[in-house]
């Protein structure tokens, strides 16, 4: 019986038949033992990750991105690579032009030093005048002096604009369009949707 069965196998199920074949040897390490994962621990891990991401998004929405320190900024690589091709080929200034430039720079430096000196003297004189006024006030009325010594909090929001190069055009030359200014700058708000399974909350 056994011989018959073996003969049957070799007659009808040989190595060239469609049923049995030898595959290529596949070298691989044995599979790792599957760890049993606690579902609660896994859920907690996912929730922590989600919370961290939500916190980061909230921080970004409130304060924006952290700016890189100036010392660490390397510049755009595109410009660094094309630096040689961006050189301006201008003729070198003549000797006369160089001398004129040097003389002008000297004159300008002297002018700015005189201006600085004048402004420093002006500031010192104004400070002296203020000190004198406060001393006089303290002598006359110490309570008024105390109140005058308090810092002025309303100065923080002060903002001034101008001066302009020219005055606004008259209405017959340029008639400004009526209406309110609408800022249509596109802004993109990222919405992070978290699966309800991963968030805290009352579970039904």
């Amino acid at each position, binding site marked *: 019986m056994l011989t018959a069965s073996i003969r049957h196998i070799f007659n009808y199920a040989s190595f060239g038949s469609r049923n049995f074949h030898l595959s290529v040897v596949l070298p691989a390490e044995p599979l790792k033992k599957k760890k049993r994962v606690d579902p609660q621990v896994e859920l907690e891990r996912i929730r922590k990750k989600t919370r961290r991401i939500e916190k980061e998004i909230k921080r970004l929405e409130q304060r924006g991105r952290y700016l890189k320190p100036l010392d660490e900024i390397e510049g755009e690589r595109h410009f660094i690579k094309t630096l040689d*091709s961006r*050189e301006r080929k201008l003729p070198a200034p003549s000797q006369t032009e160089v001398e004129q430039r040097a003389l002008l720079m000297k004159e*300008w430096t002297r002018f700015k030093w005189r201006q600085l000196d004048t402004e420093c003297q002006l500031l010192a004189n104004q400070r002296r*005048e203020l000190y004198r*006024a406060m001393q006089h006030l303290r002598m006359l009325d110490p309570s008024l002096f105390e*109140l005058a010594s308090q810092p002025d909090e309303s100065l923080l929001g002060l903002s001034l604009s101008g001066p302009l190069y020219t*005055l606004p055009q008259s209405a017959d030359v340029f008639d400004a369009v009526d209406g309110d200014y609408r800022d249509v700058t596109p802004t993109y708000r990222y919405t992070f949707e978290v699966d309800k399974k991963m968030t805290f909350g009352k579970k039904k």
Partner: protein
Amino acid sequence: AALWRSGSAATPGLTRSGRLLSVGLLIQRKAVLTPDLTELETRASDLFTRLDFERSRLSDFELRDRAESEAAKRSLSAAAEGKVQVARDGAVITAKDLMQRWAAEQQAVTLASREAADPSLKRPAVLLSTDADLCLPCCPVVDGDASLRAACDRLLELMGLTASCRLLGNAPVGLHTYKYKKSPVSLFLHRAIFTGADWRSAEASGSWKWVDADSLPGRVPDRRLLKKLRLLAAEF
């Protein structure tokens, strides 16, 4: 309490150590137009502009213009030699077209003339009274004033400039002492800045006028006060 006039009866005010306390406002208006550059400033500005240009690199737009110019030269030379050039799919609008368009847009813009504007707008000014006897707005400190700053706020309200003027600081910036009808007076000067949209609104009432530093000697009779005003109203 009304505005205190030096030539008329004074309103009773607070006295300390026999001196009458009063506050004065130095309301300054910044220059409305930029001042003209001197000859040296113009030359220096031109030099710095030229140096910035020489030390700079070509921008992306200038690179594009250079590349298009070289391509155009090659096309012309090839066409002159009779070679057939395969038309490339490139931008229809070249950098030179854009520059011409910008130049045309710039020519269409007409600015208001600076020469026609009042020259005094190019300098800062101080608000003084149009009355020959008065100069600065001032008023005595009365019992109802909690501080000098409160007296200044009341004075601004009397002048009707509360919304368009902003007091700078609680402390006085200067002191002027003089005698009024043989009574010594201490006038504490406070600095305020005009922040209204239209500087002409302060002159609308006809009682006040903007005066620049050059015209101060003709408006302020007291030489000591004039010296102080020139110091305190100086611009940096």
